[in-house]
């Protein structure tokens, strides 16, 4: 299993990460890549930047627990998760999730599962910088609902 979890201030190269992952695994038939970027506007208002705060130690552990869970649920051949912190300007990368499997269903599902959980369970907080000043981003109910889908799916399977 070639799993990589990294938190870093600097940018990442999604294509290079895919190449690293597929080179390390054999029998990969499907790779799904999700990249989250900093939008130029929040609720219709232009923003200057986002600053991401995180809980060092717990963020890595929490992501690792979800990568383990993804590995239990789907036949994955490799997972890469990179989450940036610090100040990030519109158009810049924030988060990368890459999942590799023999077939696409597992790769798609695992990537979506990991993103839904990163949004609601990984200890990161976004602060928006705009002409109005600095404001903490409020958690969205839609993100909780997206993460809950996976819990329901697991309960139904048990």
């Amino acid at each position: 299993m070639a799993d990589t979890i990294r938190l870093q201030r600097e940018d990442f190269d999604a294509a290079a990460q895919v190449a690293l992952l597929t080179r390390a695994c054999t029998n990969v038939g499907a790779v799904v890549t999700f990249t989250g970027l900093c939008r130029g506007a929040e609720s219709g208002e232009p923003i200057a930047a986002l600053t991401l705060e995180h809980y060092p130690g717990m963020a890595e552990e929490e992501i690792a627990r979800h990568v383990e869970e993804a590995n239990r649920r789907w036949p994955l051949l490799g997972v890469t998760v990179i989450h940036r912190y610090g100040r990030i300007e519109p158009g810049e990368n924030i988060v990368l999730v890459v999942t590799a499997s023999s077939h696409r269903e597992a790769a798609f599902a695992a990537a979506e599962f990991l993103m839904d959980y990163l949004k609601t369970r990984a200890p990161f907080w976004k602060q928006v910088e705009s002409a109005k000043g600095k404001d903490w981003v409020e958690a969205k109910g839609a993100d909780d609902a997206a993460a809950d889908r996976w819990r329901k799916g697991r309960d139904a399977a048990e």
Partner: protein
Amino acid sequence: MKLVYFAWVRERVGRAEEEIAPPPSVATVAELVAWLSKRGEEYAHAFENPNVIRAAIDKRHVQAGAAIAGAREIAFFPPMTGG
């Protein structure tokens, strides 16, 4: 035990971390929040709505009813907004 705060909880409390020694009657996360709220205006402000406060003990998410006995580090923070 060590307390750590993040995002607007950290800003309202006015510090990122501190060592505390609550009395033995404070047994759960919810009771710790109630105890902290009485320590001063900044704590009362940070914890004014306990429903939006999330907690972790030794870097694992916990519910408000979780026991704090034996905890080395307890974190308080708002709902997460990463990804």
